Every structure is written in C-alpha cells, then in structure tokens.
C-alpha cells in the first residue's frame, strides 16, 4: 500500500504546475472566445457597412432617378416652342409671310417619321445560332453527327 502511495507521490505534479495548467486552459478559452468574438465582430461590422452602403446606394438611385427626370424636363423647357421662338427672334430671325413661302422639292428628302421611343411590342426572335454545336453537344451527339456526315459523304460518292 505504501508502495502505491510513494509511486503516486513521486509521479504527481507539483501544485504550482497544476495551477499553471488551469490558468493556461482558462487563458486559452479566453483567447478562443476573443478570437471568435473578434471574427464575429469583424464580419458583422463588414456586413453592417455593406448594408449601410446598400441603403445609401438605394437612396442614390432614387436621387439619380429624380435628377434624370429633372434634366429631361429642363431640356424640354429649354427647347420648348416659346423659348425656341424667343431665341430665334433674339438671333434676328423673322417669320416668313405665308405668301412668300415657295414649295421647293428636294430629291431624296425623307419626311421625319413619328418618334419611336422603344422597340415595338412585336418581340424580335433571334434566329441565328449563337454558339456552334461543338460547344453545346455531348461527345455521343458529336460522334453520331460525325458518323452521319461520313455516311452522307459515302452514299453520295457511291452515286
């Protein structure tokens, strides 16, 4: 029995070493927690910053859309018939009396068509093959096609 107690005493760690291990374990846990918290905070902060950017960009989109409308309207105001007439008058132009107007036929003149603001509602069907078949067919389809081509050539030669 004594032998066992002696053996245990000889191989047991010193108290200070046990304390040190406990502290190290605790510190390791703290560091791990800090690491996880740091990663979480970093990702969370970046996600929040991106979120804020999205919100800011959405506000920008709204602002730009308003600015586009503003510019279109301002352009229309500058080019309005009354403004254009005033500018023409300021440049010294005068309106021609109707009895002085002479119709002049200009060969090749094409009358300005009505405005087309967007494609007509008849959707255009693209018929051209965008990609050669080599890019879309499987190896078996390719082999079958090649075999069919050879067969066609051979039968045509026999004729």
């Amino acid at each position: 029995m004594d032998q066992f107690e002696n053996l245990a005493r000889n191989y047991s760690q010193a108290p200070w070493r046990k304390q040190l291990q406990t502290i190290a374990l605790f510190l390791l846990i703290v560091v791990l927690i800090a690491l996880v918290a740091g990663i979480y905070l970093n990702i969370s902060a970046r996600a929040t910053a991106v979120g804020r950017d999205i919100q800011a960009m959405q506000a920008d989109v709204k602002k730009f859309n308003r600015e586009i409308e503003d510019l279109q309207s301002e352009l229309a105001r500058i080019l309005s018939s009354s403004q254009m007439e005033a500018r023409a008058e300021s440049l010294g132009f005068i309106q021609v009396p109707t009895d002085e107007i002479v119709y002049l036929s200009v060969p090749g003149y094409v009358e300005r068509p009505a405005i087309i603001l967007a494609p007509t509602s008849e959707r255009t069907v693209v018929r051209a093959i965008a990609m050669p078949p080599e890019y879309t067919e499987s190896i078996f389809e390719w082999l079958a096609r090649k075999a069919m081509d050879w067969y066609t050539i051979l039968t045509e030669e026999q004729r």
Partner: protein
Amino acid sequence: MKAQERSRRYSLLGTLFTVFPVIIIFQMVRIQANPDLGQKLRDMGETITNPSMTITPARGQIYDQRGHLLAGNRTVYEVGVELQDVKNPMTIAQTVSALLGVNYDYALARASLQASSTSVYALLIDNVPPEEIEKLKVVIEQMNSMYSGGKDENKPSLRGLVYYPHLGRIYPEETLASNILGFVNAEGEGYFGLEERFDSLLAGRSKKVRVPLDPNRAQELPSVPNGANLVLTIDREVQRAMEQVIDRAVAQTGSDSGTLVVLDPRTGEVMALATTPRMDLNQFWKFAQVFPKDTPFNRAITQAYEPGSVFKVLTMASALDVGAVTPETVFVDTGVIEVGGAVITNWNQGAWGPQDMQGCMQHSLNVCLAWVATQVGPEDFYRYLRNFGIGHVSGIDLAGEGSGRLKEPGDSDWYEAELATNAFGQGVAATPIQMAVAISAIANQGVMMAPQVVQAVVSEGYQHQIDQRVLSMPLKAETANKLSRLLARSLELESSDALITGYRVAGKTGTAEIPTPDGYTSNQTNASFVGWGPLDDPRFLIYVWLEKPGISPWGSVVAAPVFREAVEELVVLLNLPPDDIRRKLSSEP
C-alpha cells in the same frame, strides 16, 4: 444597518426576483394562448424595426408625335413637421408663412399638434419648388447658428421642420395643348384631358414594402416600373400654330371663345385641337380663375352647340346617298316652306327661285335643305345622322367628352318640324369634334375613322401602337366624292374667303342663331366653318367655331378666313406641296 432592515431588503429583492419571472411566464402564456394578440405584437414589432415604405413610380411622360416632351416630372418638396421634435411652433408658422406662403394660422395649428402614437407628422405644404427649398435651407441654417445652445424654452427654433423630395408634374410648354393634356393636382390625381383619361396608366402601380432599419438586413428594393409614356398624334408645331390662329381670330372678331379642330380624315388622328381659354398647367391652382363657372375645359369635345348650316353637309350627304336627290335636282325656292306646322325661311328671308343642289349649298338655303330632308324622310334621315355619330360620343381618347343631343322620331320632345330644322343644323346639338368626325367621312371616301389623340403607349420597354379604328361607313365613296366636288365648286363660285391659292379645298360655312328660353330671339350667333383638302387627296380636315362673334354674325365673314389662315400655316408645317406640284411629283417615276 440593522439586521431587521437588511432582512427586509433581502425579502424585497427576493420578491422582485420571483415576481418578474412569474410576470414573464404569465405574459408568455397569455400571448401563446391568444393568437390575435401574438399577431398584433408581431405587427407592432415589425412596424418599429421594418417601417413600411410606398414606392411610387414616376408618372409617365407625354410626348407629341415628334418626341417633344409635353408633360414630364421634376423634383418638388413636401414640407412638414415632425411633431415630437417641434420646439417652437410659432417660429415654424412664421417661417413657412413668409417663405412659402402657407397660411399662418393653419401652419401654427398644424405645428402645435401634440405628438402621439397615431400622430407623428403633419404636412404643411406640398409641391414646393427646389428654389423655395433653397431659401428655406438658408433660414434653417441661420436659425441654427444664431439660437443653438441655451436652455430658454421660448427661443426661436425651427426644430421639427422637415422637407422631403419627390417627383411632381411639370409641363414644359406651359399653356400649349393644355386643353388636351389636362393636369395633375397636388394629390397626384389627373384632371381633364389625357391626365384624367389615362390616369391609372400614367400613374403606374405603387408598391408598399417593408424596409428593415437594420443594415444587416438591408435588401434590394423591388423594382417598380414607371408609369406608361404616351406618344400623341398631336404635332407641337401644328398645335402652336393653330392656337395662335384661333387666338388671333377671337381677338379680331370679338368672339367669346374660339375652337379649331384639325384631324387627318384618312386615319382619324387629331393633329391639333385648339380652344380658348387655356391655362398654364404648371399653375393648376388657378383653374377657377381661368375657367370661371360653367366654362368648359375643352370646348372642342365637351360643349355641344347648334352647329347651323355646316350641318347641311350631312343632310345633303344622306340625300345624295339614299338617292332622294342628285346634284342636278332642281328645287324652286319660293323663300318659304312649311313642315310640321313650322314655317321655314332663308337666312335673308329671300326667294332664290330655281336652284340645283349646288346652288342650295352655295347659297346655304334653309328652305331647300328642309325640302331635301322631307325627300329623304325621317326614317332614313335620322338613320344617316346616327351613322354619322350625331347624338353619341365620338370616342375620342380624352376625358369629359359630351354626347350632344339628337332628338329622333319616337322621343317625347320630337316634332315633325324637327326634320326641317335639323336639316340646317337647328334643334340638334353636337360638339365640334363630333361634327369634324362626321364630316371626315365625306373627306375620306365615306369611311368615318375614330378620332384619336394617343398614337402609342410606351410601357415596360415596349412601344405599343394604337390601332386606327373605323367607326362606321355612313355613305358610299361615290357619294362622298360627289359631295366633296360639289362643295369645292360652291366655295369657288362664291369666291369664299376660305379659298387658298394653290390648293383646292371643299367646305361649308355655318351661322347658327343661339337659342334662348324664348326661342331664337337673340342676335348672337355661333359662326362655324368646316373644310378639307387637298380635294383629290385630303390630308386635313379643319373645323372652326367662333362663339358669339362681335364684328359680324356670319360664318362666311368671320370663320371662313380663319380656315384659310389655318390651312396656310398647315400646308407649310405638313410639307404639303401645292396641287400642281404634287400632281407633277406623283406623275414622276
């Protein structure tokens, strides 16, 4: 501290630690057991963390047929107060009253509202232009720098005064085509014309979404397509020229109002529709000043009137088409005819002797046309008028069209005499657009096209052309051509003021006495003229109406020159060559 006191405190703390969990558990059970309460609380939380936002699409734009913008959008601001932030309502009221013209008492009452869960924001004024907001910004900055800091509760403060941008309507051409366009009011609702007729299409569909305040939950806002754009058949230059023509005519003739309709008889496309008065659509709040009580916004489509002798065109068309008369048929005009007990006389009370149908139209003889109507008979006469669309809306794509009135046999207020009076445009009411559309059938080989102002709708990236529609075919092409030639010859023999050098046109004047409750006792008239040309290939039909002209009551004196003036402008704007050049050009290979 005594032990007793310490014990009491521990007991209190223990009680609190016990009661709180009990309350929490009780609340949990209560919410779980009552689904409605749970939903209500969920909604409440959602409202706080994800406030709802309405995405309002930009209102569709309106273009003329050449792509000139007639109605667009621009940034305007709404100015209001965040009630919980307001410190001094009087300062706010004084500022918005001085800078933005808001009534002081109204602004003070709004800014003094108590903030509550249901009342957090009060609108003071909307549609404020950016220039005004710039002034407001300066004042707010000045106030902040002068009166910031300090604890004086009564110091001037504009805290709580806020402004938010949004899109509002703008009409770059101001008064041009205002009667066609209509306007959008402060609430964004379309009134009159195209704005009312196509209100839902132009406005688009707004969408309500919940936007999380938490940036971590930020997400893409759903895309809401803008309102549809409209492309009109109206040509800005033609419209402007016609407005100038009718304005000059109203001023020179001393008329109460003037209306001028220009349409392409081949397609029904309205090229111009000019009436008086017109308003600057950017100042829609002045509507009541420009259009005092009972003044129609667009006389051309709303106001029915007795058209007078221009109506004879329809009478003669039906008579020729049904075979009741031919151009060579001679009528001996004794200056008076009695139909259904009513005695009909000519405009000059004279007897014109033997007249063929051309003479009847050239001299605008009421007696002759009343006789022609009796030859047609009421059944056929009114059938033709119905086919010409008299008494019905023409279906023009503008809001507020009037139908006029056509009394027919079988109606309680129809008498036999109406057949004779209707023949020369009395006792029947039609709008200028109805008359123009009806008579366009004669200019277009007997085919009456539906009038249209919108040529195409641009929606979600595609332009949808609006199909031209045939309204009816009230008479044979042969009859239409015959009548056109007859009316052209009438104008030429009459040496009418409507004639234009180089272009052969057909037309008819009209002078209608204005009925009063006591009959036709007034000296005031409605003067009209309808004409179309070039005769062998009509490209335009013009209808002129001058209400109560002051210088002369006669259509031939006041309305015919307006037609000529309009055609002189129109042929230049439409690049229409004189007849001889056109024939030469078309004969060239």
